[in-house]
Each structure stands twice: as C-alpha cells, then as structure tokens.
C-alpha cells in the first residue's frame, strides 16, 4: 500500500502527534504555576488517541507504507497495552510529588513521543523501521529516566541507560547490517524468504547476526545477560517512569521479538500458527536457556534487595524470563500466553509500583524496613499491595496465576522436550514467593497494629482499585481477556 493510502490507517498515530503538538503549545502559553493543565490536556489527548485506536480496530491484516509497517490485530493489541499503561502513568504523574519542581510539559511531550515510538515498534516489519522505532523509544526514555535533573541518582541512571542503550543498539544495528548483507533486503518477510533459500554454509553468519540482534531486543525486555542496566536505571529513575519502563517498552520489545523470531527466523509449519526455526537453527533452545537464566537470576537477586523498588526491578527481569519461556515452543499458544501475561503483568506490576509511589510520597522511603507495619497503618493500601504481591508470585485466584498458568500450559503443551523448562519455571515461582512475601511480612507481621497513618488519598485509592479489581477478577474470570488476546493473534503475512 502506498504512503498516501497508508495514512488513513494511521489515525491513532495522528492522534498522538496532535496530542504532542497540543501539549507543546499549551506548555508554551499556559500559566506557569499550573503544571496540571498540561497533564490534563495530555490525558485528554491520550483518551482521544485511545478512541481513535478503538475505531481503527483491524479485522484483517495489511502492510502500510510499502511494507514498512504492519496493520494487524497483533500490533493493535500491543498499542492498546501501551496506551493503557501510558494512561495510568500519565494520570499518576499528574498527582505524584516526585516531579514537583520539574516542568511537566516536556515530560508529557517526551512521553507522547515515546508512545509513538512504541506504536511503531510494535508495528514495524522492516529492519530500518524497527531500528528507528527502538531508537525513538530509547532516546525519550533516556531523558525520562534522567528527568530529575537535580537528582544525582536520576542523572546517573540516565547516563547508564544512554551508554548501555547506545551500545546495545549498536550491536543490534551491526547484526542488522549482516542480515541485510545476507539477504539483500530489510523487509522482514523478504528476509525470511531469502533466509529460507540460503545456502546452509552461511548459517554461521545468520547465527552471529541474530545473536547481535538478540542483544538489542534483549536489552529492551531486560533479558539476561543484557539486563544490567535495569536495576540501576529502575532505581534511579522517577518511580512513575520506572513503572512505565517496566511495562510499556517491555511489551513493545516483546512485540518486536515475537514478530522477529516468528516472521524472520522461523517458518510456519502445518496448519494453524506453529513454526519451526529456519534451517533448524537451535535458537529456540538458546531462548529457553536465556529464559531460565533470566528468571533465575532475576529471582535470586531479588531475594537480597533491601529496597522494594529495586526488588521490583529484579522481579521485572524475572517476569521477562517467564514470558520468554513461551517463545521457544514456537506455537500459537506460546504467543497467546505471552500476550495474556502482558495484560496481567501490566495490571499487577503497575499496581505494585504505584503502591511504592504512594508509600514514597507518604514516608519518603522505598526500603523494606520502612514498610514495617504498613498494612496496619494504611489498611487499604496494604491489602492491595498484598494482592499485587501474590499476583506477581502467581498464586490463584489472581491474574498473575492465570498468566503463569497459560505460560506453563503453552510450554507443557509443546511436549516433553520442554517439561524441564516448565519445572524450572514453577520452581522459580516458589523462589519468588519468598521476596514478594517479604513485603507482606513487613507490612503485616512486623510492627504495631495500633499505629495509623494518613491513607493514600482518594485519587490513588481509585487508581489502585482500578488496577487491583481486574487483578483479582481476572483471576476468577478471564474469558473476555482471553478472547481479546485470541483475536489479536493475527500477525501480518504478505
């Protein structure tokens, strides 16, 4: 489809761009004292975008802009995920004290651009497009991580982020260049077609290229051994940004990784959505091992954290590991499980981070020790945090359990070859219980039940309830979400 025609399918992106422009203008002409005005405009813009997005729901697949971008239910799903998490974060930032004293206009503008980048990330079916999108997301997130200019920690995290990011994208780009050289094209499907006909002697180069590319993708979803930036950046960045980084870019990264590995490095087999790796290269096994290493490392290191925020950073690494489990099986169920997990993960992870924000606002600490007796001091918050923690552990009846259930189901369904993966996965959930439970232990088992503290406030209460309710209810009845995910399983194919 040519460029002009393609623009009609770009309504949500138009909406976003308009939002960014509006925010920019409002920021220029607004009353300097009232930062909230920008935020309100931004949120309104996001809502409009969301409406446009919903109005633009694909029922078939197309490729736009001369095969640079896909327009398919798969990417639509991810756009929804990204937009949903952005809405939550935008609203929370509006009410957080973290960014007091910093201009919010630019913050929202950057956020808007980042969303745009992620939209492209999840839709790109071209190496160049993918690179551009990743860079857009990275550049904006560098700035967001370092947004607290006067905070040394925020600064440091931004520096690490930028160096690590640049390095990783450099590796990825170098991998891209080899891939391009091997196939002579940058379009995913063309690359795949060329790879299929490739002389097996060139497989070595394919391996090198894909591993370099994996470094770039792995950095985005913080998979071991490309995760090192994660804890430091997560800790240093404003908590709202951390929450956002742990969800939206990660989701986008998974979108890209799923698309890349299924479209480029694998060929469909049989009926339905099932693949086998090109030339039977052993990258599924590699991903399985990476998944195991990722979740194990994330969980083990999380055990030792003294800061809840940093613990959540490691936990997000572990969760990336869980999700990676479903990639090697190369099946529709695997993709389904990842998508479903992302939904659940969004809810519970944002919830957990928001609780950290509230606590930070209230007692200016994110240390485990300071959560002592919090369950009694702020009862509602305590209950919600407990729910999020159990959900992150993956205990029924919470959304987290359903997510894990589908992941394990996908792995086990693939046959006995991956049973070990499932076993490692479940044992890891047990380990994770320990540190999630530590939060709960601090909140309830320690401290004096008689103390009280001012509650979270109506705003946070309602935001957290919005996250907590589905976290609980989806654990009991998740058919609608499953249906939504099922309909999103359609990837563009030429």
């Amino acid at each position, binding site marked *: 489809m040519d460029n002009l025609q393609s623009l009609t399918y770009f309504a949500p992106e138009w909406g976003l761009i308009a939002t960014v422009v509006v925010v920019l203008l409002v920021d220029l002409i607004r009353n300097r004292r009232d930062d909230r005005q920008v935020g309100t405009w931004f949120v309104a813009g996001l809502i409009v975008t969301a409406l446009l997005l919903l109005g633009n729901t694909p029922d078939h697949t197309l490729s736009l802009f001369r095969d640079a971008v896909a327009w398919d239910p798969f990417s639509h799903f991810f756009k929804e995920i990204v937009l949903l998490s952005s809405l939550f974060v935008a609203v929370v930032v509006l009410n957080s004290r973290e960014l007091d004293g910093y201009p919010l206009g630019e913050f929202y503008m950057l956020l808007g651009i980042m969303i745009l980048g992620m939209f492209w990330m999840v839709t790109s079916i071209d190496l160049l497009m993918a690179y551009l999108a990743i860079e857009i997301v990275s550049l904006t997130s560098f700035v967001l991580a370092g947004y607290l200019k006067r905070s040394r920690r925020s600064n440091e995290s931004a520096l690490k982020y930028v160096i690590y990011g640049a390095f990783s994208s450099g590796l990825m780009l170098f991998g891209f260049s080899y891939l391009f050289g091997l196939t002579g094209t940058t379009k995913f499907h063309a690359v795949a077609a060329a790879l299929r006909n490739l002389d097996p002697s060139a497989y070595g180069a394919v391996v090198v290229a894909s591993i370099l590319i994996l470094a770039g993708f792995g950095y985005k979803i913080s998979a071991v051994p490309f995760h090192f930036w994660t804890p430091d950046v997560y800790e240093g960045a404003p908590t709202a940004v951390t929450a956002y980084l742990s969800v939206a870019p990660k989701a986008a990264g998974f979108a890209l990784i799923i698309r890349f590995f299924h479209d480029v490095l694998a060929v469909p087999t049989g009926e339905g959505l099932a693949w086998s790796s090109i030339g039977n290269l052993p990258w599924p096994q590699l991903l399985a091992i990476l998944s195991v290493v990722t979740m194990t490392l994330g969980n083990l290191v999380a055990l030792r954290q003294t800061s809840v925020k940093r613990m959540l950073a490691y936990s997000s690494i572990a969760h990336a590991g869980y999700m990676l489990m479903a990639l090697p099986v190369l099946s529709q169920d695997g993709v389904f499980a990842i998508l479903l997990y992302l939904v659940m993960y969004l809810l519970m992870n944002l919830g957990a981070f928001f609780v950290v924000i509230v606590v930070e606002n209230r007692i200016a600490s994110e240390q485990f020790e300071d959560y002592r007796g919090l369950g009694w001091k702020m009862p509602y918050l305590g209950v919600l945090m407990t729910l999020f923690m159990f959900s992150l552990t993956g*205990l029924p*009846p919470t959304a987290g359990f359903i997510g894990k259930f589908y992941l394990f*189901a996908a792995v086990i369904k693939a046959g006995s070859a991956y049973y070990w993966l499932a076993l490692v996965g*479940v044992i890891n959930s047990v380990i994770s*219980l320990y540190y999630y439970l530590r939060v709960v232990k601090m909140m309830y088992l320690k401290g004096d039940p008689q103390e009280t503290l001012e509650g979270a406030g109506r705003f946070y209460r309602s935001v957290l309830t919005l996250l907590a309710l589905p976290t609980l209810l989806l654990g009991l009845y998740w*058919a609608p979400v499953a249906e939504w995910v099922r309909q999103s399983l359609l990837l563009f194919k030429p």
Partner: protein
Amino acid sequence: MQTHILSWLIWLPVAGIVAMMFVPRERKDIIKVIAAVATGLQTWVAVILLLNYDSSLGTFQFLEKMDWIPAFHIHYSLGVDGLSLPMVLLTPLLSFLAVFVSWNIDRATKGYFALFLLLDTGMIGVFLALDFFLFYVFWEVMLLPMYFLIGMWGGPQREYAAIKFFLYTLVGSVLMLVAMLALYFTCGQTFDFITLSQTAPEQLQGVTWWGLSAIRVIWVLLFIGFAIKVPIFPLHTWLPLAHVEAPTAISVILAGILLKMGLYGMLRINYGFLPEAVWWFAGTLAVLGLINVIWGALCALAQKDLKKLVAYSSINHMGYALLGMAAVVAAGAMQGENVQAAQAGLAGAVFQMFNHGTISAMLFILVGVVYDRAHHREIEGFGGLAKPMPIYAGVTMVAFFAGLGLPGMSGFVSEFLSFVGAFPVFKVIVILSTLGILLNAAYFLRAYLKIFFGPLNEKYATIPEINGRELFTVVPLAVITIGLGVFPHLFLNLVKNTIDVVITQVVQLGNLF
C-alpha cells in the same frame, strides 16, 4: 435435578466475609457472631447434604457443572462422593468449632475471622471440586489465609513457621501444577475428574518421557505435592513447627483438615487417574507409612512440648492411613484378588482421615485450653492437674485414649482396618508398624502421667477448670469419636461404595502389565 447445595457450602463463608466488611473493626462481638453464623449455617447445609446423600451409590452426587473458561475446558464443576463426603462434613464442623476456639482472639479480630472464613472456603472447595483446575485454585487459595493466620496470630517463631509452611506447600503445589498440565495435554485436554479417570489410564499407557514412564513421572510429581501436605517423611518438617506456632484454632484446622487434603488428593487423583502406578508405588507407600508411624511416634516420645507431641502424633497417625491406602493392591491378581483386604485397607485409610480429623482437633483444642491458662506447654511443667481440673482431665483422657487407638473409639477401628487390609500384602511392614501401637500408648500415657498425675504442682492449685465454651468445642468431637468407634458402619456405609469404585479403578485399569 440441579441443586446448588454444594455451592452454598463453598460460598457461605465468603458471604460471611462480605458481611464482615460492613462491620466496623471495633465491633469484635458482631464479627465473631458473623463468623459463627456463617460456619454454623455451613455445618447445617452439610448435615442436609448428609441426609440427602444416597450412600447406595458410589458415584458423584449433587453434581454442579458450569462453564467457566470454555476455551480451556475449565469448568466450575462440583460433586461429592464417598471419598469427599466425610471431609465435606468435617470441614464445616471443625470450622464452626474453631470459631469458638478462637473466641478470645483480640488482635485484629476482623482480619482473623475474614481470613479464617476464606480458609474455610478454600478447604471445602478442594474437597468438592471435580475439575482439576478448580481443585488447584482452591488448593492454593488456602495458602494465603493460612500464612497470615500462622504468621500474625501465632507463637514466637510464627514468621519462620508461616513462611516455611508456605514455601513447602508451594513447592508441592507447583509440581502439581506441572503434573496437572501434563495430564491435561496428554489426556484429551480436559480437567474434568470424571473424564480424566477414564481417559488418563488409557492415554498414558505406554507413553514415555526421557525413557521414563509418563504415568510414573506424573505420579511422582503429584505424590510429592500431596506428600508435603500429608505430610510424609521426609517432607514433614514444616508440620511440627507450624503446629507449634499456630494459634490453637488454626492448629485444629491444620491437623483436622489440611493434612487430609494430601491423602484425599492421592486417592482422588493419583489413584483415580494413574491406577497403573499404584501397583508400582504401593510398596514404597507402605514403607513410607511404616516410617511415618515409627518416626512420628519416636519423635513424639521425645517431645517436651505438648503441642509438638500432638503434632508428631499426626505424622504417626497419617502413617496408618498410608498403610491402609497401600493395601489396595491386595485386590490384584498377584495377591490372590484379596478384595476383602483392599476394601478393609482403603476403608481404614478413609476412616482414619476422618478420625484423625476429629481426634487431633480434640487434642489441639485441649492443648490450647491448658496453654491459655498456664501460658506454657512444657509437659514437665505441670503435675497433678487432675485434681483442680477433673473434667478437663477426663476429656483429655478420652482424647488421649482415642489418640492411642483404644478400642471403642473410632481411631481404633480405622487403624485396625488399615492393618487388616495391609497385612496380607505387606506382612513384615505391618508387623513392624504394630510397634506403633505400643509407642502411641507410650507417648500419650507418659504425657498424661506427667501432666495430670502425681502430686499437684502448687503453681496450678487454683487453675480454673475448663469452661463451657471450651467444653462445647470438644464434646461434639468426643461424641463423634466414641460414637463412630462403636458404630463405625454409620460412617463406613457412606464410603464403602465409593471405595469399591476406587478398587475397581485400580484393579481393572491398573493391572495391565
């Protein structure tokens, strides 16, 4: 006809929780009453269930089935048969009594009773679920309240005990999750217990994974999961700790209901779906039973803390049930199709599950009574309590003698049946386990002697006698214990047809090699 009596059983406690939410937390009296009413109604419904249960059938009754997640063939499916009925009766009853046992809980009363009711729902759900997924959900739902109940209202080491309990059981249950999914995908994509019990034995026939029989792999995964709950040596070390640290009412529930879930799960799932492996595993099961009996008894004999003694006695008592369960292989061709023995053994095991529920509940309540008064549980620290507390001494004697398997009490009948059933197959093991009869008596009588007999310890000269509320919690259990000891057919008639179903399953489908 579709009745929803089982759903009532499950959701009544939840209704109680909802009702509690509207009560301010200062109104502890109202909260307690709500808890009592919820569990009381539940008990009443259970009695109605009992009255309407048709014991001439061995199959599931009062079936309820609703689609839950059709895409994954998950159903909200409930039913009750002879295996679950006893526990379905016991759960509300013990919960009801436990509410009164915990009447003095003052710290965060609302949270306590809300969690308690949630626990109740989880427990009864496990016994009623006919869908593996639902079963698993209920199984896990119990963990959370249990963690808090031990961790917040327990003894000095409560946090350690709570986390240990949680981690131990979670290890077991995640293994079960893997096994469950493996069953699901290899046996026709269903979680339905009834379907699985038909498809699993056939579909898994001859399947091997990494050179191991799939049946055995799944069996072991499930077995570990259940064994932790039972608990079976060497996976038992969470139990004494959890028991000692938990508040009395929770110990009651823990010993009375939770431990039975392991055995119930084995009978329902391991025996039901993987009958072939029963033949392979029965010997091990019997040996584990023996170890549980002897090890538990010896440990109990060594204890100085009364509650720990009772906790170890649980391990000991579960051993008898394991022996009885192993006896099912007597019905096989190799044992001369001794269906008699299989029936006796299995009936003994099921009966033992129930009896241990009542007896250990009694024991824990009684330990709690003296602990409330003396604030310690050192066996050596009492003496001559029979004088100031004659009624308490009498009731405790009933409980202790029930615990040591005195004839005339229900515990005797179940142990006897287990032994009779297991003997034809596992002669040496049974002969060795009969030592347990002696050791049981030794540790109970020794404790009784030191606490109640001998010269009165002057410290406790004015210790108050057991009060009405406490008596109310023990007497029903004592009545059941003695009643079923004299008229065990009242119980066994309920379960015998289901036992035949299990035996048929194991013999017909299992003995294929």
